[in-house]
């Protein structure tokens, strides 16, 4: 075990995969000389040279499309899109091409592509630069969408994504890059599509992913001080979605709250709560609740931005309400 930041875990993993497989290469805006807007590719151009770490023109659709073409040939491109927001310019290439090729070519062409990109607000980047659009991609058959919440998962899921033969959207979060955690040494390959119990508990299940898990764990720790036992499920993958893990958790706790950074309407939480309603309704002691963002373009002013984003206080409040609604007593 080594304690690493989320950023360093990603950087180490890219280095390890570039070393292991010469077909792996990195491509994107400002990832070489500049080492990436968030320094995830620090040092890699120097080590691997411009054929393996490719700086491109300012054109997301361009470099995503080019990466797809090279993946059809058997290369394993790892695309960096500066932020998830700019993936909208490449969305046709991702949704209509990367995700469809395997099917529409009759299973004869694989697209072993990874798109790494950070989402999330809270960085004072304003409405067009702060979105959580992962559910757009999680909706699409043919894509995989993974969203690690900690450095160990960042390593194991990125390794798995690069080795996976399907296109994978690898969702990072601007608010996670500096977070630290223990990372197992040596090769670690996660199973894509497997959720994790991030904290065990008995009274209520909080389901979350990516940065939301960090907040959920903080809240669980706080409430433990009052004798309330929260179980936190970290989805880790939004497609494929591991429905079993959170449903089993709800069977145990009988209460569930979804904590998500995206919008309430048609968000990740809608899928989770519908699944719980369909699969384990009889175990529920209270309605499943969702804590999500205010449905507004995210403001730029820090206090307004924070007001619009779901936070620990909002999660705590909804947990208490859910416990009260079910007649919970310590």
């Amino acid at each position: 075990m080594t304690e690493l930041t989320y950023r360093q875990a990603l950087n180490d993993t890219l280095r390890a995969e570039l070393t292991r497989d010469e077909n792996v290469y990195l491509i994107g805006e400002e990832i070489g000389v500049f080492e990436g807007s968030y320094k995830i590719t620090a040092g890699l151009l120097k080590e691997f040279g411009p054929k393996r770490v490719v700086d491109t023109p300012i054109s997301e659709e361009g470099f995503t499309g080019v990466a797809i073409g090279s993946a059809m040939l058997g290369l394993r491109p790892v695309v960096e899109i500066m932020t998830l927001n700019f993936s909208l310019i490449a969305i046709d290439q991702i949704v209509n091409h990367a995700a469809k090729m395997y099917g529409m070519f009759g299973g004869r062409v694989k697209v072993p592509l990874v798109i790494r990109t950070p989402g999330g607000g809270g960085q004072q980047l304003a409405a067009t630069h702060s979105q959580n659009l992962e559910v757009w991609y999680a909706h699409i058959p043919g894509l995989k969408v993974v969203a690690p919440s900690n450095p160990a998962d960042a390593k194991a899921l990125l390794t798995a994504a690069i080795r996976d033969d399907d296109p994978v959207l690898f969702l990072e979060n601007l608010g996670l890059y500096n977070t630290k955690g223990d990372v197992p040494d040596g090769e670690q390959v996660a199973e894509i599509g497997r959720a994790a119990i991030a904290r065990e508990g008995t009274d209520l299940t909080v389901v979350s992913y990516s940065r939301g898990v960090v907040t959920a764990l903080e809240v669980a720790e706080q409430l433990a001080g009052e004798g309330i036992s929260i179980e936190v499920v970290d989805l880790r993958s939004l497609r494929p979605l591991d429905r079993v893990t959170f449903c089993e958790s709800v069977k145990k706790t009988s209460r569930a709250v979804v904590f998500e950074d995206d919008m309430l309407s048609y968000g990740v939480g809608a899928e989770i709560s519908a699944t719980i309603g369909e699969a384990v309704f009889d175990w529920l002691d209270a309605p499943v609740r969702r804590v999500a963002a205010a449905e507004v373009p995210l403001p730029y002013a820090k206090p307004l931005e924070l007001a619009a984003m779901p936070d620990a206080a909002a999660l705590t409040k909804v947990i208490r309400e859910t416990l009260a609604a079910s007649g919970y007593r310590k």
Partner: protein
Amino acid sequence: MLRSTVSKSSDSEVDLLDDRDFVQLIDADGIRHPSPTIDQWVADVSDAQLADLYEDMVVVRRIDVEATALQRQGELGLWPPLLGQEASQIGSARALRDDDFIMPSYRENGVAYCRGVALDDLVRVWRGHAHGSWDPSEFRMAIPAVIIGAQTLHAVGYGVGILRDGADSAVITYFGDGATSQGDTNEAMIFAATYQAPVVFFCQNNHWAISEPVGLQATRHISERAPGFGIPSMRVDGNDVLAVMAATRIALDRAHNGGGPTYIEAVTYRMGPHTTSDDPTRYRDADELAEWKAKDPISRLEKYFESKDLLTDELKARVKAKADSVAAEFRAGCIGMEEPTIMSVFDHVTIEIDPVLERQRSQYAAYLANFEGGE
């Protein structure tokens, strides 16, 4: 070499796009080079008017320096400096007619100044107090576009609207060298040519797209692309305010008279960081900056005035007084800005608030009311 011909509605013709046709009227040493084809477009610009352009550039540089300082002092979240690009912005903006519309990127604060946008509104967005600082219809200028290249298409749409109205105004869209790689920007050129929209494509080639040198976007002059789309093009010294004004007037004259789109590559240099979050010493040579300092748009005009004994104490005092007063007003306006209320988070999502948001809003108001004194 590609050539396209641009004719002034009335008289002689200008051949465009040739290496020899790099439009420059005042060089880095302040020497005025007569041009048989271009001079007529700025024949009316007297030395007194040139002094006004000089004043604009000095004032805009001062605003820019002041804004950078305000950011460093924690008064602004971010600022995209225009240091070095004053001539490109002032020369083009001062060529516009009042009814011409501007679709800018995020760096055109000098253009906004020329449009009469209130000084505090220049930084309202960057201070985080509002998403839209000014009313675009009042100033005929949209607010900053931060998704690279998108505004070029909006310019074409606006231009098509002008044609439909039967009006004779034009649209100018500003974008950078980096933006020329985006699909949107290339598609905008196609649409502008197809519909012969009255659009001026004004590319400020400041040599950098954050950390990427222009060579990564284009292996030849950026201006060479437009003719392939059927759009006549000019390459102009973007640090020469007079040449920029001439080129923009040529393009606007075409647009105002049914001549369709024109492309201008203003060759300039971003002397500062990309934004206040950036440190350009990490990726570019000090030599390059020094080379461009020698081509500074403001000092070349001073040299020009000096050579004509026009850089008088009076002019210097006038310009300094103006810059000082603008800077003081700008700073006070920024710091004294009224803060938005927390509940304004729910404003301006749709014209009428929908039930889901209304519910969120009232729940949030109730939540805030739990705390002493509400908000």
